[in-house]
C-alpha cells in the first residue's frame, strides 16, 4: 500500500525524509520551557497578523470614542483654545485600546477551549506556567502594538510626537497590557463557554474602563463611585499615561488640576512609580493565580 510521495524522491532525499528523530527523554529543561513559551507567544502574533479584520475593528472603537464622543463632549466641557477635551481623552483612549485588546487576546483561551486547541497545549510535556506566561506575553505584545497604532494619532488631538514621551508611553502600555492580559487569562480559566464572555465584558471590562478616569475625570464623583474608581486597577494604568502626556502640555494650572488630578489615597497623591508598582504587583498576583488555575490536572 504505497502512500504517494513517501520515499519516492531520488537520491539522498529519501534518507532525509525517512529519518525518524530519536525520542527525547529530557523534559522540563529550561530550554524546553523557553521554546514552549516562545511558540505560544508567536502563535498570538501569527493569529493577530492573520486576522486583519480584528485589527481594524478593535481600532475602530477607540477611534470612535476619541473623535466622536470626544468631540461631542468637548462642546459641553469648557476648555481653552490651547487645550481640547480630546487631548484629555487621548491617554484614556490609549488605555482603552490596551484594555480591550488585552482582554480579547486573553479571552481567546475560551475559544481555544471550545475548539479544542487548549487541550493540545495542556497535554504537552511542558510546565503549565510556560503556556500561561507565553499567552500573557503574546496578548501584551498584541495589545501594545494596537496601542502604538493609536499613539500615532497623537498629532490629531494636539499631542506632540516627542520621542522620549512616546517611549515612556509605550513602556507604560507594555506594563498595562501585560497586567490586563494576566487579568483576562485569570478570568478565562473560570469561563466555561463563549456566551459567558459577554457577561464578563459587561461586568468587568466596561465598568473598569468607565471608572478608570479614561473618559472623564473621577475627582468629583460621589464617594461610592470614587471608591470604586480607586479599586479599579485600570486607574493606576491610565493615570501614568495621562501624567506623561500632560507633562508636555503647556496649559493653565486650573485646567491641569481639573483634567490631570492624579490618583490620591486620602491626601496622598500617588507618584507615578508607585502607581506603576501597583500595576506590576497586580500583574504578578494575577499571573500567579492564572498559572495556579491552569496547573490543575486537566
Amino acid at each position, binding site marked *: 500500500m504505497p502512500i*504517494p510521495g*513517501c520515499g519516492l524522491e531520488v537520491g539522498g532525499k529519501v534518507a532525509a525524509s525517512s529519518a525518524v*528523530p530519536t525520542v527525547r527523554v529530557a*523534559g522540563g529543561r529550561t530550554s524546553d520551557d523557553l521554546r514552549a513559551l516562545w511558540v505560544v507567544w508567536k*502563535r498570538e502574533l501569527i493569529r493577530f497578523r492573520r486576522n486583519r479584520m480584528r485589527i481594524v475593528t478593535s481600532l475602530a472603537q477607540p477611534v470612535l470614542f476619541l473623535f466622536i464622543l470626544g468631540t461631542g463632549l468637548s462642546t459641553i466641557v469648557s476648555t481653552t483654545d490651547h487645550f481640547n477635551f480630546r487631548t484629555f481623552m487621548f491617554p484614556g483612549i490609549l488605555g482603552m485600546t490596551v484594555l480591550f485588546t488585552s482582554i480579547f487576546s486573553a479571552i481567546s483561551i475560551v475559544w*481555544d477551549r471550545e475548539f479544542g*486547541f487548549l*487541550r493540545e497545549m495542556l*497535554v504537552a510535556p511542558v510546565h503549565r506556567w510556560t503556556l500561561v506566561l507565553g499567552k500573557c506575553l503574546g496578548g501584551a505584545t498584541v495589545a501594545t502594538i494596537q496601542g502604538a497604532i493609536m499613539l500615532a494619532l497623537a498629532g490629531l488631538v494636539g499631542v506632540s510626537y516627542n520621542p522620549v514621551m512616546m517611549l515612556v508611553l509605550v513602556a507604560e502600555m507594555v506594563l498595562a497590557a501585560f497586567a490586563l492580559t494576566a487579568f483576562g487569562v485569570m478570568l478565562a480559566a473560570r469561563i*466555561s463557554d463563549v456566551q459567558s464572555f459577554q457577561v464578563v465584558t459587561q461586568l468587568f471590562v466596561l465598568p473598569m474602563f468607565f471608572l478608570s478616569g479614561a473618559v472623564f475625570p473621577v475627582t468629583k464623583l460621589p464617594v461610592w463611585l470614587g471608591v470604586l474608581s480607586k479599586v479599579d486597577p485600570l486607574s493606576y494604568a491610565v493615570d501614568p499615561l495621562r501624567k506623561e502626556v500632560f507633562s508636555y502640555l503647556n496649559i493653565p494650572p486650573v485646567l491641569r488640576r481639573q483634567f490631570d488630578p492624579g490618583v490620591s489615597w486620602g491626601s496622598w497623591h500617588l507618584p507615578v512609580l508607585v502607581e506603576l508598582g501597583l500595576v506590576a504587583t497586580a500583574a504578578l498576583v494575577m499571573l500567579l493565580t492564572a498559572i495556579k488555575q491552569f496547573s490543575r490536572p486537566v
Partner: protein
Amino acid sequence: MPTSGDGTGCVPMTMWQADPVTQLDRPLSAAAELAGEPAISATDLKKSYKEIEAVRGVSFDVQPGEIFGFLGPNGAGKSTIISMLCTLVTPSSGRARVAGFDVVSDQAQVRQRIGLVFQDTTLDDYLTASENLRFHAELYGVPREMVPARMRQVLEIVDLWDRRDGVVQTFSGGMKRRLEIARGLLHAPGVLFLDEPTVGLDPQTRSHIWSYITELKRHEKITIFLTTHYMDEAEYCDRIAIMDHGVLVAVDTPEALKGSIGEDRVELHTDDDADAIARLSETFQIKATISEGAVTFHVAGGEEFVPRLFAELGVAIRSIRVARPTLDDVFMTYTGRTIRDAEASGSERFRANPWMRARGRR
C-alpha cells in the same frame, strides 16, 4: 505478538521487521527503550466518577508494534481508559504503564512518548497546517534541525504535503483528521492513541484514514491504540478488546474472536448438489442442506476446510463462498446485544467523554 495475514488489510507484523531500510532508519526507537516490556500494560484499572463506575477493573497488555483496538458502544468506558493511559485522568485504583513509564508517577515521561489524536479536532483553525505542526514540534521539544524533514515526512504520510501552507479553516473534516494524525506522529511517539479516529467522516475518507493508519504502522513501527465503535474498522486491528459497561468482555485477534463463537458458513455450487450432500455426509460427517440454491453447511475454520473439500469431495465445484461470523456476531455473543442496541440505550453517554465533564466543571 500476533500477526495477521488474514487478508483484512492489516500489514503483517513481520513485514516491517524484515525491512532493512526502515530498520536502519530508526536506530533508537521508543520500542527499543522498552526492552521487552509491553508498550501498554494495564492492571486492574478502575475509575469512578462519584456514584458512576466508568471503568471497573480492566487489565490488558499491548505489545510494541501492535494495532490494538478498543471496541464498544458509546459510554462503555473507552474514552475513560484512553484518558487514563494518556495521563489526562487519574485512575481511582489500579496501575498502568505506557511506553515503559507509570501514567501516574511519570506523567511527563509518558506524555513525551505518546501521540494523541482526539475525537474532536484540536487544531488551530487560524494557523496553516505547517504552523500547527511547528507549534507542536516546539511544545514537544523536537530537535530544531530535525523539524523540517520530520514535518515533510509526516505530512507526506497523510498526503497533505501539498497543502502545508493552507490555513486549516479551509480544510475538510477528513483533511483535519489526517493533519491531526500527522501532528500526533511529529515527535516520533512510541505509542499513538487514536480516539475514534474516523468518527463523523464519510465512508471513503474513513477507508483512507485506515490505509494511512496501516501504512503508518509499517513506516513508523509504532504501537497504535485506538477506540472505535465501528465493527468493520475493528477488522484492521491486530487485536481487539471488547468493552461493555466498564469491563473487558473479550481480548483477542479479530480472527480468534470470530473463531471463538462458532463455525463458518460455507456455500457451494456444484454440478451435482445431491451427490455433494451425500459425499459431505459420508467423507466429512457434515450435514449439508440446500439453501437458496446452494449447498450450505457449517464448519469450523472454513478457509482451511476449502482445500480439503476440493481434494476429497469428488464432485466438481463451480463456486464456493465462505462466510465468517462478523464482529457484530462476536459483540452480540459476548454482550447479549448488538452494538447498535447498546448505542441506542446509551444512557451513560455523558461519561463517554471526560473532557466534556471537565469543561462543564469549570
